[in-house]
């Protein structure tokens, strides 16, 4: 069994259906927290997509004769000061919070990957110039940067998403550049260069595939932060604008009516928190799955 020569034979002996499962996916599947987080997010995303099927009430229509109803049969999570159904506002609000955060992270990732690739691979003056800019942006706390930009540009759906993406992008650029610097010294890149592959081909076919692991882990972990930032922007009035249903915005209303309707403050906050925890679990799980070394080190 311990004979190293026996190993490849054993591998060949496994049936093809089992061989296709990658060891990373296998490790992820065995991580209960990560799977739990992924299931929670999938169910929530489904609920938000199918929101009209899950509630009889509009998320924005006011029923002024039914304000301050505590959670009960008619309204499972109660109603707010304007008689709006809280459950309905949660599932419709998730479309903003989950949808826009995912969009913002995708944009931040693509932008950061482009900048990082170019900067890390080209080196020289271009790298210096790009990294100077990144340094300045990294020197500003990201929530502050986002707040500042939205305050001046003005909050619209588009500007909020773009600004959230922009405020995160420098970190992605740094991360990618660092990885590229390491990768481009490796032999397979040299080999590709010698074989006459163009720069674009080396970037896209040789470097990007090796970056997907760390980048997707970072993006997943970052999603929690982006959800909190989006809700925070809305909470101080420069994110999603009323009367839309959005979790941070719901908390702004709730804060003013804490005495009469405390439940309106509980559920949106819980939704944000659970999403962040879930993204963290999935991200941690993915990192451990892709890089088993980290797991052993942190125990």
């Amino acid at each position, binding site marked *: 069994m311990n004979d190293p020569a026996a190993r490849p034979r054993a591998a060949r002996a496994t049936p093809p259906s089992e061989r296709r499962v990658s060891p990373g996916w296998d490790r992820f599947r065995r991580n209960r927290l990560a799977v739990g987080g992924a299931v929670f997010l999938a169910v929530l995303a489904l609920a938000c997509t199918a929101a009209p099927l899950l509630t009889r009430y509009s998320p924005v229509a006011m029923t002024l004769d039914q304000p301050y109803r505590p959670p009960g049969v008619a309204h499972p999570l109660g109603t707010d000061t304007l008689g709006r159904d809280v459950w309905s506002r949660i599932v419709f609000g998730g479309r903003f919070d989950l949808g826009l955060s995912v969009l913002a992270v995708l944009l931040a990732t693509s932008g950061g990957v482009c900048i990082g690739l170019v900067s890390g691979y080209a080196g020289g003056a271009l790298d210096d110039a790009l990294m100077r800019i990144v*340094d300045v942006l990294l*020197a500003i706390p990201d929530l502050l940067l986002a*707040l500042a930009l939205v305050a001046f*540009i003005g909050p619209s759906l588009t500007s909020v998403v773009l600004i959230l993406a922009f405020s995160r992008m420098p970190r992605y650029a740094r991360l990618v550049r660092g990885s590229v610097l390491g990768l481009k010294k490796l032999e397979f890149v040299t080999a590709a260069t010698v074989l006459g592959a163009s720069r674009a081909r080396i970037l896209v076919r040789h470097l990007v595939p090796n970056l997907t692991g760390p980048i997707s882990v970072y993006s997943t972990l970052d999603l929690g932060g982006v959800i909190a930032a989006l809700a925070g922007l809305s909470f*101080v009035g420069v994110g999603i604008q009323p009367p839309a249903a959005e979790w941070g915005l719901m*908390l702004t209303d*709730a*804060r003013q009516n804490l005495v009469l309707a405390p439940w309106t403050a509980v559920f949106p906050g819980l939704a944000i928190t*659970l999403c962040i925890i879930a993204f963290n679990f999935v991200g941690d799980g993915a990192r451990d799955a892709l890089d088993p070394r980290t797991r052993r080190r942190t*125990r």
Partner: protein
Amino acid sequence: MAAHALKRLAEAVPTLIGASMLVFALIHLVPGDPAAVYLGPDALASDVATLRHHLGLDRPLAAQYWLYLTHALAGDLGRSYTYKAPILSLILGALPNTLELSAAALLFSLALALPLGIAAALRPQTALDYASTTVAVAGVAVPVFWLAIMLIFVFAVRLHWLPASGRGGPPWTAEGLAHLALPALSLGLGLTASTARLARASMLEVLDEEYVRTARAKGLRPRAVTLHHALRNALIPIVTNVSLQVGILLGGAFLTETVFAWPGIGRLAVDAMVRRDYPLLQGVLLITIVFFILVNLLVDLVYPLLDPRIR
């Protein structure tokens, strides 16, 4: 040592210039004419022109920036139109309150996180470890403004133990401390989580080191080994982390101060946002960013003193 300090100082200069350019440029991101937006739709054209001139918006861009930079360096950040006062004095009036809140939050988080993290590292895989990890996981995930609202609900609305908003005076008075408690708790808990996790990981790593084994083998008491040999070295990454946390504190202060009506620069900025007082907002941002950059610089300079291996 001195060379390292000078190099870091020199590196901070372009960052500071870049940040000042960014803050300066913000006013030009306002869609349309900032002066017109600022004065509202009913403003007279002559008033808009006067304000444009006053804000320097009628000059070439480079000249505007030069003016902005030289004035800012001389301590002149302009006047706030909504408060009818010099911006610098408004900021200097609010800054100590933000620093008080941030320092209280930081102290609270360290006082809670260090024992929690160390205890978890000394007894890994026990109930204590799991409990502290759970607190850490939850603490990272709870948004500061929601925590603030929940704390107000429990301790102010229901129990009537602590006031819900405002600042009660200096923190050494009972009234001041009572008003400080909830904001500091809200702002501090998020930091507690990350510090506790870091303290645990860092302690675990250090406890594995040869010098800890040597100290134990010498027959030193476990407490002496933990405190003098392990903790001292485990603290190094935690100190670095504190400098990163200043950024989280400053960002979080905007939200916390809004919830608690705490009279700091965060609330000043949110006020300025709502009233479209762009020069005031620029001023607050400039001061905050410069402060953040300087704190990071300071930590970098102190770092080699803590860890001679860095040199």
